[in-house]
């Protein structure tokens, strides 16, 4: 019983040493310990198992595990491998998209099919209380230069909580039209259209 538990302790320490050796972190003492027991079967298994885990983590196809060896850390390696596979599905978008297409985007295409999928709603910054403005402001001629900072009105514009697709589309068309209008006013260059484009990017 006692022997058995001693053996277990030895085993754990040995595994640590093997691990350190793999990571190039083994000190001389650990190296000697590993070398002195290098002929033991169990040590070989540990060595191989650690290499398998490392290989899977690094995404290598050919692990150092011998084909006849049963895969021991099956749970870990399987899930890691699955995660890696998933990552590979997404990662090559920049390579496979290339000039030949938009395949990788097909999932998002549905969302984009809505004309100018601007999301006005949902990204609203809370409207600042503009209560300083006068309500029912009379039509002011240029000469009447009363400055609009009067806080005599608390009525605030209602924020729209939700827009349906049709309304969204209408708003987006207006936004694009307004940007087009802005083009007659030189000065801000690409900004009017950039506003449309950037909102669009976020909305998709």
């Amino acid at each position, binding site marked *: 019983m006692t022997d058995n538990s001693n053996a277990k302790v030895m085993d754990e320490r040995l595994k640590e040493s093997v691990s350190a050796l793999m990571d190039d972190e083994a000190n001389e003492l650990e190296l000697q310990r590993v070398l002195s027991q290098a002929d033991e079967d169990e040590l070989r298994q540990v060595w191989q198992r650690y290499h398998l885990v490392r290989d899977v983590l690094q995404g290598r196809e050919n692990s150092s595990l011998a084909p006849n060896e049963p895969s021991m850390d099956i749970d870990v390696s399987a899930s890691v491998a699955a995660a890696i596979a998933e990552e590979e599905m997404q990662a090559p978008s920049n390579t496979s998209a290339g000039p030949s297409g938009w395949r990788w985007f097909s999932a998002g295409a549905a969302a984009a099919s809505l004309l100018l999928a601007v999301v006005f709603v949902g990204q*609203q910054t809370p409207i600042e209380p503009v209560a300083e403005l006068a309500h029912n402001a009379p039509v002011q001629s240029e000469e009447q230069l009363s400055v*609009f900072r009067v806080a005599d009105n608390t009525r605030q514009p*209602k924020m729209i909580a939700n827009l349906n697709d049709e309304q969204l589309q209408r708003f987006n068309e207006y936004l694009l039209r307004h940007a087009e*209008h802005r083009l007659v*006013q030189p000065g801000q260059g690409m900004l009017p259209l950039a506003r449309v484009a950037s909102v669009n990017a976020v909305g998709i």
Partner: protein
Amino acid sequence: MRQLLMTIYALFWFCLSSVVMAEAASSDVKQWLARMQTAAMEQNYKGTFVLTRGSMSSTLRVVHAYINGMEIERLTQLDGAMGEIIRRGGEVMCVFPDNRVVQLEKDSFANSVVQAFADFMPDPRFYVLTLDGETRLVNRSSVQVSVKALDDHRYTYQLWLDKQTGLLLKSSLQSAKGEELERFRFTEISFPESISAEELQPMNMDKAVAHEFIPPVPVDRSWPDNTMWQVGFVPPGFHAVRDARQPGDNVMLYSDGLASYSVFIERVAADMMPEGASMVGGTVAYADKLENDGHHYAVTVVGQIPAMTAMLVAESVRPKVMN
């Protein structure tokens, strides 16, 4: 007595010189703004910029060329799905990630308006214009111009202009409370002598699957011939750049030299449009319902103005029967 006279004299000169200096500064700023306008049109430039609105930001690439008196511009989204906007003169075309091309049908937007508008400057009665010194931006010397709103009908702008060309390198749009609503900033820019045609070509145009046109906002002919749309409230400092001139005209554009908004009036089904404001950064869309003669209309104000102002404008729209 003599001392008093001297003091008055000194005070007089002091006041006069400050007025003169303020005017000089203002005219300097106006010159810079004029340069900014010209540069935005006539310079060849390409670069990358970031547009931040609230918590969102997006990166875009711009290639802008001025060829034979026409502006050609290509904007490419660098974040998220790729979409592009191509502009040739007044024609705007959007290329969507799903290979659809959407183009605005040409509006009958008079070119004479463009001319009349070219020298339009922010009115010093509504903005304080100051030159705030020089800084280095994107490895270029820039001058900082501050255009501070004097009332709550418009926003305040901080502009950084390229010292050599006058092009806008950075801008910040702020509310009356000093909250930043929108920030635009080049992260890299160059001013090449010439720009090749390929650089202005949208990607994958040959793969376009559909070409759609957005028709202009239809003119409603169901009104009596002698009825015109009237926008009752125009915030001080704003002028109609495009006005309703004939019965049925239903798109208007107003500007104060920097900010602008459009008013759209469309006949819709009763519950088609919502009522209220929707905002993205410094851009507002305010929709209001209008019922007249048994017909439902939607009045929508879109522009870079505070929501309150947009609301006041939208609510002031009325049909007027001309005699």
